[in-house]
């Protein structure tokens, strides 16, 4: 597929996309190279690998990688693939090790990726193997942003802070509420959804519109009404009386560099209705500290969805952070982490772990309905006509603005598809093989154009 064909699939100025972008196998192969081979990808939280030799086993796109804490405290990211015949070196989710030894022929690598020993080296290679040339392939770029470890294969990519742009302001609202930063609570939820990665990423990037209808059942049964519980109290003792968005005084959608976010304004320091009472109380009690660090808007912004392009998404309040690992054009592997302030008391972390699973684990009251939608769209896209028919992405088109009140980026009302249009614009710019300078310039031009329109 050439660049002109790819460009014809997305019209971010007029708000249309061709659904082939979700189903075409050729495009998917190009994505692995041009999107996942060039962008900053979230891999692990630093709290998951505290000690030297600790590793976390994950993926960059479809490439398996090990995130490994070094003796000097730094973190390296290396392919989980032996250099001899490409065998996967390590199958444990995480752990601690002195070496990675290949199960196939026994080549052993140090935790820094250097090839340490080769069985029968003298007899088999007759002293001719230059081990210094056969270390593990390493991601050349690794950065830590407030506890989140990212890597990038592309040496020409902008640094992580530049890549984030205005999204850093929103990400800080999730990671920087309290002194001491955050940590992952509990393990990682992992499950498969038969849908293209862009459906999930775009929803968290831009789509506040789906919530009232998709989640209608959860809203009905979890709301604190006398019908739901005789005394009218909500799920979980002492839980916040109303969700932040129920008192919503309007909201904002943000777009920039392919990233997106949306949230409602509120005057209550409450989390979503679906978290446990201990969690709500915790957010209320720690509000003054959060406000001092983040300002009122972000400290109160406990209900909101976000995607950092391409596949890192999170929701404030229920504290879910997830990666949509691509697994072919029609499949993703979802990995979900629960993020808590490190300074939160143990009982709050335990309550958060329960709330998190109840709302957004694979059996979550809300999660169940999201996956169902994406799967069914993906099934329909098996049809020839279905793949050619434009999708309408025009919500809020022409109402973009830059705010005067300090909320950064291109913004719109919360029910808009500005962030989706920005997401697909960034996708096209990457997929057409532009250099990073060209990509950044094209993104800036798109932002200026939508403001001027």
């Amino acid at each position: 597929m050439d660049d002109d064909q790819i460009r014809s699939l997305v019209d971010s100025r007029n708000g249309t996309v061709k659904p082939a972008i979700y189903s075409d196998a050729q495009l998917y192969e190009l994505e692995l190279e041009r999107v996942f081979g060039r962008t900053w990808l979230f891999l692990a939280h630093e709290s998951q690998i505290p000690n030297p030799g600790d590793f976390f086993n994950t993926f960059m796109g479809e490439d398996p990688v090990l995130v490994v804490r070094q003796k000097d405290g730094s973190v390296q990211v290396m392919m989980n693939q032996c250099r001899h015949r490409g065998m996967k070196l390590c199958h444990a989710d995480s752990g601690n090790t002195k070496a990675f030894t290949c199960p196939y022929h026994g080549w052993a690598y140090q935790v820094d990726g250097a090839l340490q020993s080769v069985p029968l080296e003298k007899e088999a290679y007759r002293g001719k193997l230059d081990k210094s040339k056969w270390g593990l392939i390493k991601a050349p770029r690794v950065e830590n942003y407030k506890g989140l470890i990212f890597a990038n294969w592309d040496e020409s990519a902008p640094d992580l802070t530049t890549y984030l742009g205005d999204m850093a302001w929103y990400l800080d609202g999730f990671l920087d509420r309290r002194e001491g930063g955050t940590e992952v609570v509990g393990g990682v939820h992992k499950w498969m959804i038969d849908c293209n990665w862009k459906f999930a990423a775009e929803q968290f990037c831009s789509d506040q519109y789906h919530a009232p209808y998709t989640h209608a059942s959860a809203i009905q049964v979890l709301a604190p009404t006398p019908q739901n519980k005789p005394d009218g109290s909500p799920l979980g003792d002492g839980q916040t009386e109303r969700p932040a968005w129920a008192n919503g005084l309007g909201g904002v959608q943000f777009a920039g560099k392919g990233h997106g976010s949306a949230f409602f304004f509120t005057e209550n320091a409450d989390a979503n209705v679906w978290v446990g009472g201990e969690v709500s109380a915790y957010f209320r009690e720690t509000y003054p500290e959060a406000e001092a660090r983040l300002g009122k808007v972000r400290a109160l912004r406990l209900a909101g969805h976000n995607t950092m392009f391409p596949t890192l998404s999170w929701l404030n309040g229920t504290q879910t952070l997830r990666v949509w690992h691509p697994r072919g054009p029609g499949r993703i592997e979802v990995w979900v982490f629960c993020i808590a302030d490190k300074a939160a008391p143990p009982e709050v972390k335990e309550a958060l772990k329960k709330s998190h699973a109840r709302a957004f684990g694979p059996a979550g009251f809300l999660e169940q309905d999201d996956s169902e939608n994406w799967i069914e769209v993906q099934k329909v896209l098996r049809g020839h006509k279905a793949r050619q028919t434009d999708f309408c992405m025009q919500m809020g088109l022409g109402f973009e603005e830059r705010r005067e009140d300090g909320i950064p980026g291109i913004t719109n009302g919360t029910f808009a598809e500005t962030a989706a249009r920005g997401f697909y614009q960034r996708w096209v710019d990457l997929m057409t093989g532009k250099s990073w300078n060209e990509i950044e310039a094209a993104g800036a031009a798109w932002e200026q154009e939508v403001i001027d329109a």
Partner: protein
Amino acid sequence: MLDELTRPLRVSADLQHEVEQFLYLEAALLDDRRLRKWLDLLADDIEYTLDTNSLAQFRDRRRGWAPPTTYIFHEDKYQLERRVARVETGQAWAEEPASRTRHFVTNVRVLAQADDELVVGCNYLVHRASKAHDHHSFIGTRRDTLRRIPAPDGGETFIIARRRLELDEFTLMSANVSIIL
């Protein structure tokens, strides 16, 4: 203590039969989607849990360390009732139209008994058929605490006081768990 059970606990054929019949009844209520009736089999103080699994190196396990896990379910009775209520809204899209399920219970063993409670282990297989073509299986093991209570019509019956589910998968191969396991 229970993990050290290497010989079958001596229980009467009657008790074994009674326990199995109770578990089959429960499975039938779930499969027939008589979910409110199923709720009646649960103690008010029930704790219903399912944790994720993790893959650990043998040497880490030997050192007593494994990657952390998290809950898939950690529910009390009220939360289980809300799950039933969710399906009843007709807008729980993962269950609209409702899946058909088939709960199989096997390898039933009474592991311990004390006073009015029994600890029962079993393996389970739940098959879920949904939408036009989707089939998923959930296979695992579980440990139930059954409590003997007076039956409303005289005699005795069981209620489930605790259920600890384990699922064999490491990465769930289904998009969601919208049914009761």
